[in-house]
């Protein structure tokens, strides 16, 4: 159900619209979904976009691991819009279809890449317990490095923000499909 009205590009004044177009370049080409809501607070949107643009260019983590952290956030928050936008990117980055499907169904996923496994275990445990065991932490640092672990949390946490905006304001999936059956 749509709760908060998504402002259309023509409803923003010219500087904000220009900012939105700049932000949209790396986000599907048009101002839409959660970013249309973010733009209600233009400076916030600008800073959020600068921060998240970094995720695909300036991290030590490979892209498959970044995208896995993204879809873990989409799944945890039941954000179908984010899932539909990001799960194809996870697949394109090399996360296996079987793993993506298991995550979608909330079934245990298996991984051959130890970095992917580390991210999956880290966030699965963080969400369910608000903490991680020594074993999970040790495995995450071993696979990702200290820097990589911190990066993964930033990525996942930011997409958690996008996802909670989607969930709270009622942003519907772009293509009308409901991967979580909501």
């Amino acid at each position, binding site marked *: 159900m749509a709760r*908060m009205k998504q402002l259309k590009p023509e409803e923003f004044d010219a500087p904000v619209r220009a900012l939105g177009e700049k932000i949209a370049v790396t986000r599907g080409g048009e101002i839409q979904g959660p970013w249309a809501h*973010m733009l209600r607070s233009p*400076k*916030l949107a600008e800073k959020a976009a*600068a921060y998240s643009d970094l995720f695909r260019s300036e991290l030590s983590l490979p892209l498959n691991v970044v995208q896995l952290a993204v879809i873990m956030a989409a799944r945890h928050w039941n954000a179908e819009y984010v899932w539909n936008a990001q799960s194809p990117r996870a697949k394109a980055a090399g996360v296996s279809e079987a793993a993506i499907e298991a995550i979608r169904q909330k079934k245990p996923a298996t991984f051959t890449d130890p970095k992917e496994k580390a991210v999956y275990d880290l966030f699965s445990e963080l969400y369910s317990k608000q903490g991680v065991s020594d074993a999970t932490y040790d495995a995450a640092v071993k696979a990702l490095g200290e820097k990589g672990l911190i*990066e993964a949390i930033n990525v996942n946490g930011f997409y958690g923000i996008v996802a909670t905006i989607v969930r709270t304001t009622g942003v519907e999936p772009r293509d009308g499909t409901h991967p979580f059956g909501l």
Partner: protein
Amino acid sequence: MARMPLVKAEEMTAEQRALAEAIAGKRSGVIRGPWAQIIRNPKLAQLAAAYGDYLRGETSVPLRLVMIAVLATARHWKAEYMWAAQGPRARESGLSETIIEALRKGERPKFDDPKDAAVYDLVTRLYKSQAVSDAVYAAAEKALGATALVELLNIAGFYTTLAMVIAATGVPTIEGAKPAFSPSGSA
């Protein structure tokens, strides 16, 4: 329990040190807590801090409501460091000791101001069930308006990111701080 050692000033590159000083200048004066972890990637830390600076003090959300969201987030994650670091700002924002104590215990405070209640309900329902009812949404939009509601979700989510860093890496609480969530302070 300390897991990942905080990055110390003397271990930093010149780039990290300059950035650490800028980050610390807007906070307690020294780089500490989760920021002493995020600095491992200086570019990420710089843009995270710019975003975080805006969220902590420049949005249209009144400070009191910011602090309700921040303390509820600290409590959800049992993030001792965050609780200790944010306590002074929470008091400055006008939150009563009774409200702060209820938040610490994870109990719904008896709020006099419906805006306080709307923010508390929004954040805690989201954390608990990853969704909010129409009534909770409507109360939040009435209390905040659309723009501040979006800002508040950014604030709650950014402090969630910091709380995950604290929880995963074992950021120790502030020296001398009384444990808020467990007798050992290790929660």
